[in-house]
């Protein structure tokens, strides 16, 4: 389509084969976890890629262990709260960066960049001790704080890139036509900004949902342990059982939101990732 012009059948077939290769490369590891999660205990070690006997038992089992259910609640709650705060705070900062002239703008951009490159593990030991003394260790806020911090650069970059694209003259025009500033914002600017904000929220959520290092270092019980951290401690509903099937079922459960995001918002995610990162 782009170069060479003619899309002959031969070229299409060749591209089709390439596409299938990518498809297999990307999907096989995911399908493998799904397959394991549906295998029965007896067939778990048969090594076949497709389950010989299918069962929902592993899913039934994990939803009966408080270890998993609590972790799932923690994961969802912590990721959503962090996302909301990071996006709201990020929106304010990104609006200022994209639209206003003020001292310290470069400073903020610089700080965000530094934090985007910051080795998170460097914070683990000091944060552990600080959170212990502030009684934040093993609490929701104890994880939400670092998540917001590391999500902010992502959120600021992506949002300011989106905000630069908004035709702000429309706001002026609306006001000339007699709209109040509030109306101009609600009827004109908010609908234009919403897709960018939404995209950013998805990216931030994925980031928080994914984190393992903080989740495992700054928690110690089911009070705040998220699913990725809980998975690594998961020993099955009784200790004599092979936990593989249940680990995989839990893994599939936390993969579902990611798959849904990717399926429904592919365009937005691609636009968000590329605009934020290659900016400048």
């Amino acid at each position: 389509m782009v170069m060479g012009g003619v899309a002959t059948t031969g070229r299409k077939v060749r591209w089709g084969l390439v596409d299938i290769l990518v498809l297999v490369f990307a999907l096989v590891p995911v399908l493998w976890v799904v397959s394991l999660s549906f295998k029965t205990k007896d067939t778990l070690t048969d090594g076949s890629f497709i389950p010989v006997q299918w069962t929902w038992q592993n899913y039934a089992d994990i939803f009966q262990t408080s270890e998993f259910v609590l972790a799932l609640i923690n994961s969802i709650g912590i990721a959503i709260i962090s996302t909301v705060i990071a996006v709201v705070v990020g929106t304010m900062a990104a609006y200022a960066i994209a639209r206003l002239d003020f001292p310290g703008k470069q400073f903020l951009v610089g700080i965000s960049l530094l934090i985007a490159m910051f080795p998170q593990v460097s914070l683990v030991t000091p944060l552990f001790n600080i959170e212990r003394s502030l009684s934040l260790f093993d609490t929701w806020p104890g994880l939400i704080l670092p998540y917001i911090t590391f999500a902010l650069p992502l959120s600021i970059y992506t949002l300011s890139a989106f905000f630069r694209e908004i035709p702000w003259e429309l706001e002026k025009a609306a006001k000339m036509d007699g709209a109040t500033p509030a109306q101009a914002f609600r009827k004109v600017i908010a609908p234009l900004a919403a897709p960018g904000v939404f995209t950013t929220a998805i990216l931030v959520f994925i980031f928080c949902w994914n984190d393992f290092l903080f989740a495992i270092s700054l928690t110690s019980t089911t009070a705040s342990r998220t699913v990725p951290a809980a998975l690594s401690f998961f020993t099955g509903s009784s200790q004599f059982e092979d936990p593989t099937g249940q680990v995989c079922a839990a893994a599939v459960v936390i993969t579902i939101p990611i798959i849904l995001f990717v399926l429904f918002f592919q365009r937005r995610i691609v636009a968000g990732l590329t605009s934020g990162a290659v900016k400048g």
Partner: protein
Amino acid sequence: MSHAVTEAPAETPKKAKPALSEGKKAERRLGLWLCAPAAIVMIAVTGYPILYSIWLSLQRYDLRFPAQHEFIWFSNYAAVLSNSYWWTAFGTTMFLTVVSVAIEFVLGMVLALIMHRTLVGRGLIRTVALIPYGIVTVVAAFSWYYAWTPKYGYLANALAGSGAPLTDRWPSLFVIILAEVWKTTPFMALLLMAGLALVPEDLLKAAAMDGANAWQRFTKVMIPVMKPAILVALLFRTLDAFRIFDNIFVLTNGAQDTSSVSMQTYNNLVKGLNLGIGSTMSVLIFITVAIIAFVFIKVFGTAAPGSDTGGKR
């Protein structure tokens, strides 16, 4: 992508001042107020702890022996830097970083070209490529773990014969690299694709007219135009790869000398409860990352993303 394209040179004449002329002062004040929460959170959660960890790193501070808490200057640094485990972990981390980023770069470029140019199923390919990017690293790591576990795994049964790959050093490192590459190639590809979008079609057509073959067009036209995007992608992935933790934790838990510096720091904290040594490692990792970033920015001339935005508008 279009953002990236239109933005770079677009210093449009309209200086987007707020519609109503409330005056410079009000604008400045508003800007500062809007940025304050973000700046405060970011500095409070990273700046303060890193300073605190420098302070901790100068002390003997082991939570198991609180009585021995004292200021010991640089003894912790001497202890870590003369420890062979640290250097093994450092070497392993460097090895994993260099090898996986190199492979990701090649595969990422291929994937970027596919996503950019494919004639069929472009949306499908982009959707599918996002799955490794989005999936929880621990989940992917478990997938590879079971795939390479004898009896359980399709890969172990098919490729490893009777051996157990995750119980030997080099096979383990190979599996770790495989897991890293699978997970992060799509991200690399997306960044490179944004760079690809900057390559003017006309330029490629002109080169083709002049008789440049596909490879020449790639190396002589595309690569130079994409250079800034390539450097940013490499910088970000290198720094990210250097902090590798999740995959190693699940795949080998650092056994057989496959531990990374992040794993060492974590183990020191959780198993050792030694805050002095842990903080020393934190500071050393921080310095290493700063050096890597410095080398990229000064030596390769990577334009830090965002460094030249702002300002005018």
